[in-house]
């Protein structure tokens, strides 16, 4: 814990590390150029296994052996007759002022995601950011965070990040780069910027926008292109189609009673997903039989986070959604041109009329949301329907576009590439987003890129794009740089660095300022000066005060856009772009990956290992089809001979020890779409629309890092600009290859009720693990979730019960009605509690480490089942079965009712896990925690022990947070207030499904929730007396719709 403080008052990590790490630190930090060329480095890049695990699998080397011996001797030495090791302690020379050693600090910042600022609050321990929370003051976050925000801190410390400037494949120097930029600038100043192009993602940052505008002014012939693979072109174009201009739509789900989602995953993939999830859940929060709930109708192809929550979910192929939208618009009496007369043959007859009546009964309190995959016409229809239902201004609000320059990004990109092809581009500056990998298959970006003379790429990683560029400038992570970004409603969020750039990375601002001819300006000056220039009325001193307060809050007050009055175009024409009905063949659907997004998180171990919602697939993507389609394909698929190496087996073992491979090997199929082919393993997903094949993006990367390289298959390779989201005419063929997919939950029993008799999902209901009713049933019988008296915890015991009537008594309530299964709690827990990543092989062997998991169960028919998410942390049973079997007392109960796990006492018999009926305990079968990669050390939460090999671990109700607050409350001589201690999962949960607190305090939120009649405990008949309890799930179906 020592270093000089730099000018920002934050620590320079490099010097910390070089002091703390002697050997490894030297190798890692001081001779990067050497490292870059060594075999070791290449092996790292190609390694299939994440940090540290690979070595454990393939045996050990001498150093490991010595280390293990040393470690075990040291561990044993704590109690055995061994002399303790001498440790050093290193103080500061000059201590930074705001630090109190040992206490965390919080800084507000924002993470740009889809170009939109997501407000974050960052924990900083001794100058190192370790954990991301949502920012309470930020409209897009309200203190909540999603998986990408939570996991972004791992990217900061990713050892695979590019660490040096690369010029023509070799380590370059920054000064050479400055010279190069100067030359380019001079040249382009001469030719007015002809041939100078900037390629960025979606830009909402006012400062960056200002810089770009300035550049375009300096170089009038230069052009600025924007491209992101998941660009919201359809949304933008839909708005323009409806209103004649680009406007942003804001939905007020907290006002909406009836919601219709047309292929829209607004709870998760929408840039405002965190806020929308919060608003949506608030309208579903039930406190008693009198409570009201909103009603969600979802029309979609594959079950999404949003669709699973729908009270009525209609499976339609994406192309059919448009037909549905047209029918609905027609039924609602929307008068536009080109509506058409098509209708859906397989639509249940009572569906549409019931939906229309429901919407019309909720004029002004309903909302129709069109999803990004749908063509502009559907978006325009949604706008028209919202207008017709009187929702505009109530549940739907329009504002100016939050982007600096809203563009049709696909067109912009296509134009750039064609200019590149025709030699019109001399200098291309690419600001991130790895376009070589993400470019549509029919836009030959990579091929034309080499025709550009000077290719400069600013990126976090050495990736597919960087290798094709002359200059690769390592980018600064958002936690290392200054910046700003607009939230979904236009509010400007400030981005401030928590740490000096680890690898001397540059932000986009700092790169552009070079081209602006102002090389000396730092990121701080750029952003600061821009905002000062916007506040000319303030004196410099007053501005500094203002600036500090903005940074403190993380948002700039009063920058939210005001609602804008827009009118539907009179001549709105929604005639389908392509004439005639869609062909009846297979339809291909592309969706962003629910864990690694568009590929920008491919090298993030937390997200790779995060089980995808529903499929619980980890470390891979799959070719997802519905059960009926799988059966049909199985009958009809032709076998083809594939060229090339194919997918390989995944992982495997020798014949006498096949490992989990045989049972989890999936058939690899060849997909041919518009002449392009890709191989992928076939996976059946219940609830998906028939005759469509869903692929997730972001996998199959060639150069991602040791985590992400060569995982899954690349769906971009068959994704065209025209069919960016879906298209028909897909052909699927059998290849006779098999590939191992690894899932944390086994769905092999779905659809095979005969063997074994009781399938996984059937038995979940048989065992009352998920309790569910409709709102109507609940009103009639509020106690439906209660255990029958003969099965409750009142079971007789010969032993007197333990006295839990004093002090704090911690408990948790999880509202299944609010939980949307977004997984944010899992990543929050992983970040908070230093949970290790184990790799695909280990997950396949049943050894994932997540302390909290989201179980998924299906009910009803195979084709369109009801889908339930159940979040399962440790139940903290009062009569914990794990405790009395531990031979060394490594797991005991606290007087506050927490089931404690003491790692340093654990000898690893794993008996506790066997005896845990909920199976929430996790075991370090190997040395899963990375003790070798220096850059990952500062990521760790210093308040939680990093577990070693051979010990059990589990959810602790974030005891470090409880103790932290408890100690300071004790010092102040007061009791803890309700809500003062938040567990990591609770704090991040976008829907506030998880509530934790003192159950003895009757006024605490958790006690009130537990008093609800919907409360039930898992497996209470075992007399475990769980402290974590659930609130039963409720549906609010439309009584007019009879579903089978």
């Amino acid at each position, binding site marked *: 814990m020592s270093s000089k403080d730099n000018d920002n008052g934050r620590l320079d990590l490099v010097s910390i590390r070089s002091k703390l790490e002697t050997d490894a630190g030297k190798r890692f930090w001081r001779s990067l150029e050497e490292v870059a060329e060594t075999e070791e480095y290449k092996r790292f890049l190609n390694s299939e296994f994440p940090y540290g695990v690979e070595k*454990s699998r393939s045996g050990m080397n001498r150093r490991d*052996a010595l280390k*293990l011996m040393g470690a*075990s001797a040291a*561990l*044993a030495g*704590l*109690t*055995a007759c061994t002399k303790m090791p001498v440790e050093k302690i290193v103080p500061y020379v000059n201590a930074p002022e705001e630090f109190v050693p040992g206490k965390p600090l919080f800084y507000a910042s924002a993470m740009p995601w889809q170009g939109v600022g997501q407000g974050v609050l960052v924990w900083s321990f001794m100058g190192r950011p370790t954990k991301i929370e949502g920012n309470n003051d930020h409209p897009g976050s309200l203190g909540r965070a999603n998986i990408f925000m939570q996991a972004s801190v791992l990217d900061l410390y990713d050892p695979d990040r590019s660490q040096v400037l690369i010029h023509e494949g070799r380590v370059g120097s920054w000064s050479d780069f400055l010279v190069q930029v100067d030359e380019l600038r001079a040249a382009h100043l001469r030719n007015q910027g002809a041939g100078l192009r900037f390629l960025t993602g979606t830009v909402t940052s006012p400062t960056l926008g200002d810089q770009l505008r300035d550049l375009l002014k300096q170089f009038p012939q230069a052009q600025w292109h924007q491209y992101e693979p998941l660009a919201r072109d359809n949304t933008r174009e839909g708005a323009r189609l409806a209103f004649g201009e680009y406007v942003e739509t804001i939905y007020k789900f907290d006002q909406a009673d009836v919601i219709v989602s047309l292929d829209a995953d607004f709870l998760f993939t929408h840039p405002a997903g965190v806020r929308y999830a919060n608003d949506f859940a608030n309208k579903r929060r039930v406190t008693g039989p009198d409570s009201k709930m909103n009603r969600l109708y979802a029309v979609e192809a594959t079950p999404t986070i949003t669709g699973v929550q729908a009270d009525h979910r209609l499976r339609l192929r994406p192309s059919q959604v448009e037909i549905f939208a047209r029918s609905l618009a027609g039924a609602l009496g929307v008068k536009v041109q080109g509506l058409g007369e098509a209708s859906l043959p397989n639509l249940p007859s009572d569906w549409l009329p019931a939906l229309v009546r429901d919407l019309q009964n909720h004029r002004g309190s309903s909302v129709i949301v069109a999803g990004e995959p749908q063509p502009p016409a559907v978006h325009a229809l949604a706008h028209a329907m919202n207008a017709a239902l009187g929702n505009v201004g109530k549940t739907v609000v329009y504002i100016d576009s939050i982007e600096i320059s809203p563009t049709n990004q696909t067109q912009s990109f296509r134009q750039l590439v064609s200019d590149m092809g025709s030699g019109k581009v001399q200098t291309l500056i690419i600001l991130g987003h790895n376009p070589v990998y993400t470019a549509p298959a029919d836009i030959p970006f990579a091929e034309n890129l080499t025709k550009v003379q000077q290719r400069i790429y600013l990126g976090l990683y050495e990736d597919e794009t960087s290798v094709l560029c002359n200059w690769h400038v390592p980018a600064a992570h958002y936690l290392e740089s200054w910046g700003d970004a607009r939230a979904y409603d236009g509010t400007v969020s400030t981005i401030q660095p928590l740490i000096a750039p680890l690898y001397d990375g540059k932000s986009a601002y700092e790169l552009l300022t070079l081209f602006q001819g102002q090389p000396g300006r730092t990121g701080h000056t750029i952003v600061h000066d821009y905002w000062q220039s916007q506040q000319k009325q303030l004196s410099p001193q007053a501005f500094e005060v203002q600036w500090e307060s903005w940074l403190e809050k993380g948002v700039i007050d009063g920058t939210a856009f005001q609602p804008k009055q827009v009118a539907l175009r009179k001549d709105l024409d929604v005639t389908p772009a392509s004439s005639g009905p869609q062909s009846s063949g297979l339809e291909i659907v592309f969706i962003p990956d629910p864990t690694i997004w568009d590929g920008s998180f491919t090298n993030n171990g937390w997200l790779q290992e995060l089980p995808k919602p529903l499929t619980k697939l980890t470390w891979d993507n799959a070719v997802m089809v519905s059960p009926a389609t799988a059966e049909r394909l199985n009958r009809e698929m032709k076998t083809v001979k594939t060229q090339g190496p194919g997918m390989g087996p995944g992982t495997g*073992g020798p014949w*006498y*020890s*096949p*490992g989990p491979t045989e049972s989890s090997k999936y058939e690899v199929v060849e997909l041919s779409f518009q002449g392009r082919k890709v191989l992928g393993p076939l996976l059946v997903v219940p609830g998906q629309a028939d005759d469509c094949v869903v692929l997730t993006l972001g996998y199959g990367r060639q150069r991602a890092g040791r985590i992400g390289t060569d995982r899954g298959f690349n769906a971009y390779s068959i994704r065209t600009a025209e069919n960016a989201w879906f298209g028909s005419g897909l052909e699927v063929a059998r290849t006779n290859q098999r590939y191992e997919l690894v899932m944390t*939950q*086994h769905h092999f029993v779905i659809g095979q009720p005969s*063997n*074994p008799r*009781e*399938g*996984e*999902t059937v038995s*979940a209901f*048989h*065992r009352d*693990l998920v309790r569910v009713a409709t709102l109507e049933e609940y009103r009639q019988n509020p106690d439906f979730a209660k255990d029958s008296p003969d099965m409750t915890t009142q079971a007789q015991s010969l032993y007197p019960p333990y006295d839990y009537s004093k002090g704090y008594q911690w408990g948790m309530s999880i509202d299944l009605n609010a939980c949307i299964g977004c997984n944010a709690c899992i990543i929050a827990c992983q970040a908070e509690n230093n949970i290790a990543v184990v790799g695909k092989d*280990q997950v396949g062997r*049943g050894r994932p480490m997540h302390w909290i*998991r989201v*179980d998924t169960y299906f009910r009803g028919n195979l084709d369109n089942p009801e889908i339930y998410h159940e979040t399962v942390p440790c139940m903290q049973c009062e009569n914990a*079965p794990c405790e*009395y*079997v*531990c*031979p*060394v*007392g490594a797991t005991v109960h606290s007087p506050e009712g927490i089931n404690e796990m003491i790692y340093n*006492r654990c*000898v*690893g*018999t*794993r*008996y506790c*896990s*066997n*005896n845990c*009926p*909920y*199976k929430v305990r996790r*075991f*370090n*079968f*190997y*040395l899963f925690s990375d003790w070798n990669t220096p850059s990952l050390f500062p990521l760790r939460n210093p308040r939680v022990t990093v577990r*070693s*090999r*051979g*010990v059990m671990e589990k959810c602790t109700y974030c005891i470090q947070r409880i103790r932290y607050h408890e100690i300071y409350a004790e010092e102040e001589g007061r009791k803890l207030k309700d809500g003062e201690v938040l567990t990591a999962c609770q704090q991040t949960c976008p829907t506030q499904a998880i509530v934790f607190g003192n159950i003895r305090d009757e006024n605490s939120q958790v006690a009130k929730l537990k008093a609800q009649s919907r409360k039930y405990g*898992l497996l209470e008949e*075992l007399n475990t007396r769980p402290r974590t309890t659930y609130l039963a799930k409720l549906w609010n179906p439309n009584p007019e719709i009879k579903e089978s």
Partner: protein
Amino acid sequence: MDPVDPVTEEKPAFVEPGSPWIAPGHSYGSVSDRIAGVVLGRTRKGWIFGFAIAFFLFLVLNYGITMLFFVGVGKFGINIPVAWAFAITNFVWWIGIGHAGTLISAFLLLMRQKWRTSINRFAEAMTIFAVACAGMFPLIHMGRPWLFYWLFPYPDTMGVWPQFRSPLVWDVFAVSTYFTVSLLFWYVGLVPDLATLRDKAKNKLAKVAYGFFSMGWRGSVKHWRRHEVASLLLAGIATPLVVSVHTVVSFDFTIAIVPGWHSTIFPPYFVAGAIYSGFAMVIMLAIPLRKWFHLEDFITIRHLNNMGKLLLATGMIVTYSYVMEAFMAFYSADKFESYMMLNRMTGPYAIVFWTLIACNIAIPMTFLWSYRIRTNTVALFLIAGVAQVGMWLERFVIIVTSLHRDFVPSSWGQFYPTPTDWEVLFGSLGLFFCLFYLFARLLPSISIFEMRDLVHKTAEEAGVIAGAAE
């Protein structure tokens, strides 16, 4: 039989006429020489060959354990939910095998069964080696085996103690007590025979070694009397001990709430199963032993027949337990129990379950009724082997099929053995046979003094030496 005793070079006082438990024509001296001759004679090629194989397997075990210690317990195929598998299966299996030895030496002694005389020594040795093999497994299956001593109560720097409510701590006490008592019992029995070997050995080193371990035993009346009392006392306390040990081992499962483990029938069921597998092992050791070392005179067909009958009897108890376990699972109407049983019979491990039924019930219970099969050494050996495999599978089924699908279906999983799993299983056989080969070579496999006593009693009963004592 040579009428002249090779040691005394005189005609023995008498030769016994034979009885069900010993072939005719033996004198005190001849039994002593025959049994001691195995130990004091030259090393045979067959012994070296067999020992080499066992030692190779022992090296395999060492390899497996080294990997486990250095790389981690993840070398086993275990996971969550199946956190115990081969190692604990092996543990219970070996402990069970151990039980027959103590039962023969203690229980049959109390019952005054004469036929125990010729089998108790090697059965006790088997017990000790089996318990040694068993005791190794809880250690190597720990995540941090170097901290094993935390399971023992001692005043540590932390001021904490073992958690005495845990069956694993009970195991520590039960197994270490069992090992200690078995070792003592065995040693007490060996002392007079070590004196015999001391007196017979020609080699100076052997003389010193046997002399050292016989501690100066001289067969005095007072020695014999105390020896007899001690043997009886030990038998008296070893009999409840042997029952308690497998009861405690069964507590590892019954104390837990896992469906398929949490069952009150387990203690007797485990004890019966232990004796079943133990006798199977005794048979499997006795048959080659009598053949290779020409001990057919002492381990007679009647011995094998009796052991076959015991195998049959314990097998029937085991069968009854299986039936009751299944019956109770359904009769209890407990959804977890009944699913567990159904899953055992029809789930992914059904093949293992039905193999176990075949090995433990169908085959032995069909054939052991026949006298001809019980007295046919090859058939008996094979049936004992089948039962041995069956008992291993039984433990595997109890442990793995109960764990792999317990309460919460989302956490269901599968267990697949890894090379390390097989290494330690076969390696432990190597360790056992290494020890047993050494034992058969270095120590008398049959109790010499008790055989002399048997000769005496046989002769007495036949009137060859009438009323000698009175």
